[in-house]
């Protein structure tokens, strides 16, 4: 398995370097997850100070991205990793970009939340946003779990989940348009809500990207811009072939 590659290296220092940078990425992920959760809470509960705090803390995400980026460059330059290690570094560099974007979207939501807190709240208390936010947070969480465990199955599940988010996005959009037509006074608020929903939808896309990097990292396959069913079939076949190859030697 590819997982074993990470723990069996000739150079222990190299191993530790890789592990450390991996932990850093996941630590950054944990921070981003929390930012996202706080931003959604701020919006749903109308907590303007929490929303502002989220927007203010975003620079920490940027600092983490820069630090991890530097470390990756250093590893590339000094260790010249190959095969699985190289894929790990490449996947990390891509993952932190997506995490940073998630952080930016979270900042946006926090900022809008602090503004929406001063406006009248709708009767449904942003129930749809709460639900969508939950789905998206879970996606980010599961994508990072898949990254930590190098778990292709979970990664594929996350990638599939993106379709649910897109449908939900459409539904909220239609609903907002109805509200705006019914009562033009709500247009301002509805527009802000649309920004938030759009941000959440984008976060879902980023989570999907991260799970694609996991598949790339484990199998060395680039599955971007291919249909998920094809990917799954191909991976299954790959596994079967590997199993068949392994069977006679056992």
């Amino acid at each position, binding site marked *: 398995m590819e997982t074993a590659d990470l723990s069996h290296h000739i150079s222990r220092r190299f191993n530790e370097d890789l592990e450390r940078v991996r932990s850093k990425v996941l630590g950054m992920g944990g921070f981003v997850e929390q930012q996202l959760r706080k931003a959604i809470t701020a919006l749903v509960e109308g907590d303007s100070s929490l929303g502002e705090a989220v927007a203010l803390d975003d620079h920490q995400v940027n600092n983490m991205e820069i630090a991890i980026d530097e470390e990756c460059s250093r590893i590339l330059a000094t260790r010249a990793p190959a095969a699985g290690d190289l894929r790990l570094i490449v996947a990390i560099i891509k993952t932190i970009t997506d995490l940073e974007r998630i952080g930016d979207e979270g900042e946006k939501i926090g900022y809008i939340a602090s503004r929406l807190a001063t406006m009248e709240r709708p009767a449904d208390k942003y129930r749809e946003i709460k639900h969508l936010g939950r789905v998206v947070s879970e996606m980010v*969480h599961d994508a990072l779990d898949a990254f930590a465990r190098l778990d292709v199955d979970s990664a594929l599940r996350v990638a599939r989940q993106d379709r649910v988010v897109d449908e939900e996005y459409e539904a909220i959009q239609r609903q907002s348009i109805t509200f705006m037509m019914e009562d033009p006074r709500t247009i301002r608020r509805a527009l802000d809500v649309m920004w938030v929903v759009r941000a959440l939808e984008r976060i879902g896309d980023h989570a999907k990207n991260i799970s694609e990097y996991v598949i790339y990292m484990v199998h060395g396959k680039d599955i971007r811009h291919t249909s998920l069913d094809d990917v799954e079939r191909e991976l299954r076949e790959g596994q079967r072939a590997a199993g068949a190859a392994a069977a006679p030697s056992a």
Partner: protein
Amino acid sequence: MQPATQAWGFAAVRLLGTVVIGCGVGWLFGNPWVGLAGALALHLVWVLMYLFRLEWWLRHRSYADPPDPGGVGGEIIAQVVRLHRRKRFHKQRFVQLMRQLQRSTAALPNGVVILNAQREIVWFNRMAARLLNLRRTGDLGMRIENLLREPEFARYLARKDLSNPVVIRQTTPADSYLSLQVVPYGDGQLLLLVSDVSRQMRLEAVRRDFVANASHELRSPLTVISGYLETLSHDPALDSDLQGPVAEMRRQAERMTGIIRDLLELSRLEETGEALGGEPIDVAALLALLRKDTVARPVHPRDIRVRVESDAQLIGDEPEIHSAFSNLVDNAAKYTPAEGSLEMRWWVDDDGGHFAVSDTGMGIPAEHIPRLTERFYRVDAGRSRSTGGSGLGLAIVRHVLQRHGATLEVQSTLGSGSTFTCHFPPGRIRAFRRPVTTVSA
């Protein structure tokens, strides 16, 4: 005679017999040495075959049915079988013990995760798997912070002192609060204890909200009552019989306002749990202000000293620190007779900054000291009511200090006075740099 000695005896006799017979037969044929050599060779072949059988058995040990080749070999096999039985007995006992241990840890209502020095998961029980969403086999060898990514947990791990558990909020699989504590043991290994504290956290939140809401709701009617009482007490037409009661009502209404103000202050302090950065505070100026306030009291100790031994500044939230210090000074002034003395002291050393208030009051009995900072805790019910405190002062002090990473130390001798000391960590202290503007002014 022991069987082993017996067996060795037989072996010796057999060898001697072989030698004698070999020599005898050789002597009959005219050459005893050839006979001896032939006999010894035969004996050697026999010994080798014997050894072969022994080794063959040892290789394919079938303990259930050990052969008995007799002699020394039989003894060796008997010893091996005995050793094996003993080993099997110990092993079974060990396995049983392990199973019991595992069953008991699995039944624990708390999650337990064993981590090695690299913080990789070595073992965890069922509850830990449920609470932390861990996978039975796949997650062994994984670094804990890779799966438990909450920033609070990372900060907790980076801390030196792990004795206070950290509470994190989890949204997957269910929205819950988990209390995590790491206990180092053995050779750099760590024990991570996990418990679900969602219920406590929710109850705590309900309690906090209730206190805050109730205090808030009580404030408005009380303002009206106080307002009318004030007008009434200044009314010259007020019946002289009623003047005393009205004055008393006014005092009590004021006291109630104080209690509600303190309750609101406390719930605000609780609401924003974590320590904040804050700005540098000029402690000398703060203490001078507190001294002025104390002197302004109708009854105050005659001798009030302020000793500022360092011009280092304290980093914190100024209104909160002011409230905490003034509560301490107020208490000291309240319980010190007019002829007594009161001292405020500020000093800085390697352990950080320290603020102490000493008085020469009646002191506090030792058994009350640990409970002093509880809400509404009274050392002497009758006496405290007469001094008109809210009973929340020290609770506020404790919360403010907690938020600043500081601790409160109380020393008291009955009859000769008490000292309340606040210890601030070195990170909260900054050497004073006189601003340019004040120098030129």
